[in-house]
């Protein structure tokens, strides 16, 4: 059986769109009670690119990507992933969509009652149901080597350092070969060396698995290293969108404060 990237294309309902836009968001709105978090967000993610989303803490970056996979229900606007409106999917279709989208949580979200190995097996067994034991083992070893933690296999999450947890949860996300990756602050709270490693890892993932990614970060080094395009959010709206150079050369005080 072929377990490589191609099997994700077999499913008839989610095909790589011809136009090259994998995610398209139009006029997205989301409030919690009285608090309007996302006021009007429109953005596009093109096939194969790394899109970095910048923005102050609390502007709703995490909320934005949670809306993409329907962990939160948006209040208005449209989110198309692979040319399908996610708000109109039924449970089964949503499950299929989520199999194509890898989500790296801000807190890592490793299951603390399971070992690293079980953490990695969990999505594999549930998303790729017809893998043999051997194939699962090989896949797990492969991704653990990719994140440089092959010896952590039988550790519990509580025995890992913060950086190791981040890397294991990245491994858990890429183990199922997603076509889209959503990274929520992959380098926050890590030392410069580890951050740099993670940034390289993100580029490796993009090249190796041909993914399109949205990367949320405050870490400007990581942004510069991984970005093909940058979008900056402020107060629930898109503040600026453009190439890396546009941001570097900008005289806007808010942007400058990020790119100091």
């Amino acid at each position, binding site marked *: 059986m072929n377990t490589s990237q191609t099997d994700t294309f077999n499913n008839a309902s989610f095909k790589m769109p011809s136009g090259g836009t994998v995610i398209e968001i139009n006029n997205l709105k989301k409030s919690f009670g009285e608090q309007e978090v996302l006021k009007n967000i429109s953005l596009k993610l093109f096939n194969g690119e790394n899109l970095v989303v910048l923005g102050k803490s609390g502007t709703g970056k995490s909320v934005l990507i949670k809306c993409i*996979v329907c*962990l939160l229900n948006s209040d208005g606007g449209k989110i198309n992933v692979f040319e399908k409106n996610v708000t109109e999917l039924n449970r089964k279709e949503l499950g299929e969509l989520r199999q194509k989208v890898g989500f790296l949580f801000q*807190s890592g*979200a490793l*299951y603390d009652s399971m070992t690293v190995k079980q953490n990695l097996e969990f999505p594999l067994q549930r998303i790729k149901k017809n893998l043999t034991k051997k194939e699962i083992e090989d896949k797990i070893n492969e991704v653990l080597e990719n994140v440089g933690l092959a010896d952590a296999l039988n550790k519990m999450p509580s025995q890992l350092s913060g950086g190791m947890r981040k890397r294991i949860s990245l491994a858990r996300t890429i183990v199922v070969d997603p076509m889209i990756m959503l990274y929520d602050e992959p380098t926050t709270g890590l030392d410069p060396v580890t951050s740099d490693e993670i940034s390289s890892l993100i580029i490796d993932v993009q090249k190796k698995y041909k993914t399109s990614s949205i990367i949320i970060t405050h870490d400007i080094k990581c942004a510069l290293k991984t970005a093909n395009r940058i979008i900056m959010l402020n107060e629930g709206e898109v503040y600026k969108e453009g190439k890396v150079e546009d941001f570097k050369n900008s005289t806007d005080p808010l942007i400058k404060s990020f790119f100091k």
Partner: protein
Amino acid sequence: MKKFTPVKIVIPKLRNATEQSLKKLSEKTIAKTVSANNFLTDISDVLLFIIRIIKETFSRNFEFKEFLHQCFKIGYKSLPLISITGTIMGLVLTIQSRPVLVNFGAVTMLPGMVAISLIREMGPVITALICAGKIGSGMGAELGSMKVTEQIEAMEVSSTNPMRFLVVTRVLAATLMIPLLILYADALGIFGSWAGANIKGDLNFVLFFSQAFSHVKFIDFLPAVIKSFFFGAVIGLVGCYKGYNAGRGTESVGVAANSAVVLASLLVIIVDLIAVQITDMLIL
């Protein structure tokens, strides 16, 4: 989960003094209405939660492995605690009631009386309360911390229904294991009672046992067993509900665990009251 939004009530601006006092009165009424409204939304949330659990229980993909794991955790891991409390329960009950029965010259009734009170009331209720503390708080804290650290969302994006994987398995395991723990506590309680009777006089265990069970009828067992299942279900439901619906900060883990114990214990007592009323009406 779908929540009912509480109704918004706008207080109109009032001018003179009489209206001021009226306003105070209306504010009080509004506060009451709002809290009553919150209470009703809470109840409807709980009902929706239960309906969802029932629906997921009968869905095709039952998480059998996780269910067994939970049975092990709830049942086996509670054995030491239940053994100690069960034995002491019987022992203490015997030592306390012996002098009274001696006064009435009814010491021979001791084994039967202890067995009946253990099986009908003490065993189920005390064991359920202990389980509410151990299992209810455990579930509340575990699911609460999973919620806070986004683990439940992580499950959802890996094509796993967290309701099915986490909640259904735990509620079913509690419903099944807690009655077994209760029966086990009953048995050890009777053993403890024999030990207690043995302190003051030499009593053969077989004799004690046959004396005890000459008084116990099937009709003593049945309602107790039935209500134990309800105790188990209540403890599982409350623990999971409080954990699964924990807030967003770390402090909400503590709140979830604490309120799970309080509510589960309270509901165990209330269910017991209802069960006793029903058995009383039906049988005796």
